[in-house]
């Protein structure tokens, strides 16, 4: 099979468009990670709460969101909500959809991380007179954070790649930028190889940041 030589000149011509898409991908991922982590933390805390209603809600949330494809959720938000009187722009829909979905996965990771911390830590904190939120914030979460980092890093990378799904709701991120170029020029090899390399660069950079953080945290406990 002949792949044909990659035309560097053509790549240079499409690169600005692809880079614009990549910037949007980064933007989406950044917002989705921030919001998603917040949602994940709240849902995780709900799931281990002593209040039955909160536990029930947390369980329902992860059950529903993890059980339905992100693609369908995005389409519902984008095409469905306007029928219910709520029209949001593409960017908002994309961020909300990705955050809600990422949050459900992160909730499970965070819950497992919190529960992996020895029970004696919470008891020691409470026995000093700390409130539950104080114990969580000062004692449990800082320890859980370290254990959470590798699986959370994975989740962040997944989220970055899944951001390509929002191309279906006309959000011009990297994949849709590539698709638009493809429709206009019909040179899929240069276009998709370039886009793939850009994705790879972004995920690699992310992995490196997470690894660096992990190493720094290991040092901070003196082992």
């Amino acid at each position, binding site marked *: 099979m002949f792949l044909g030589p990659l035309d560097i000149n053509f790549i240079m011509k499409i690169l600005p468009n692809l880079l614009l898409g990549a910037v949007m991908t980064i933007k989406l991922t950044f917002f989705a990670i921030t919001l998603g982590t917040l949602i994940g933390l709240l849902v995780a805390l709900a799931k281990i709460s002593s209040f039955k209603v909160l536990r029930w809600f947390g369980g329902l949330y992860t059950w529903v969101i993890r059980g339905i494809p992100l693609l369908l959720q995005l389409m519902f938000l984008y095409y469905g909500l306007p029928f219910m009187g709520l029209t949001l722009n593409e960017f908002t829909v994309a961020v909300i959809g990705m955050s809600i979905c990422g949050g459900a996965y992160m909730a499970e990771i965070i819950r497992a991380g919190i529960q992996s911390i*020895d029970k004696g830590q919470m008891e020691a904190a409470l*026995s000093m*007179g*700390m*409130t539950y939120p*104080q114990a969580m914030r000062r004692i449990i979460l800082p*320890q859980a954070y370290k254990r959470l980092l590798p699986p959370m890093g994975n989740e962040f990378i997944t989220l970055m790649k899944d951001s390509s799904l929002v191309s279906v709701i006309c959000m011009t991120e990297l994949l849709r930028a590539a698709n638009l170029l493809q429709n206009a020029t019909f040179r899929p090899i240069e276009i998709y190889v370039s886009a793939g390399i850009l994705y790879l660069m972004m995920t690699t950079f992310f992995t490196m940041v997470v690894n660096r953080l992990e190493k720094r945290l290991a040092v901070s*406990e*003196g082992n």
Partner: protein
Amino acid sequence: MIKVQNIIKDFGKLKVLKGINLEVKQGEVVVIIGPSGSGKSTFLRCLNHLEAINSGNIFFENQPVGFNQTPEGKIVPIKGKELCQLRSQMGMVFQRFNLFPHMTALSNVMEGPLTVLGKAKPEARDLALELLSKVGLSNKADNFPSQLSGGQQQRVAIARALAMQPKLMLFDEPTSALDPELVGEVLSVIKKLATEGMTMLIVTHEMAFAREVADRVIFMDEGKIVEMGSPDQIFTTPRHPRTREFLSSVLRGYEKIPYPQVG
């Protein structure tokens, strides 16, 4: 200082505490001994409401712990703030130290005064350094728990509890997780506290230590206080057959108990 009235605690079908009554006065050192599974640790953990009791009353300086009984006889849980306030006045030392691994020894000791009491950093630091030197670990202030031996970790844990300037200290088998050669250093810190007049409740398997430090010894078995008395009385003339049986099995080999003939 602390008054316990007929407390009952069960884990599902398992009855762990079957009606415990006890009153501890200020400055008193009470040592609780007994076989494993007798409810000693659970009892201690009920006192600061790490475990919720099923019924009964606990009063710490006349304030109810965990639950309160209304004049109509209804049992209601006390407010979170009040509970924290009560707990902050009772120091607890755990079998497995439970130091915070992400903090240095110094930060561990500073944590309570900073977070719970809201003290200023320099003040908390001075107090923490003073307490670390009291337990003989001034030179380990900047070490993380993972860099300390078990005995050192437990001494930091004692300093951490003392940093709250508690009125009462609860020790839950403080030396059970230690290598034998490290037991002495922890016990000597506790002894020092006893001579300073700290009110303490100590669950331990160290009989020689119990005899030396206790004002009162309690023998617990199967969720009940079987026998209570001065250390001399319990260790030399135990009255209850279960106490005798227990003591003879744990003391076998290095301390002889004269057996009064029961007839």
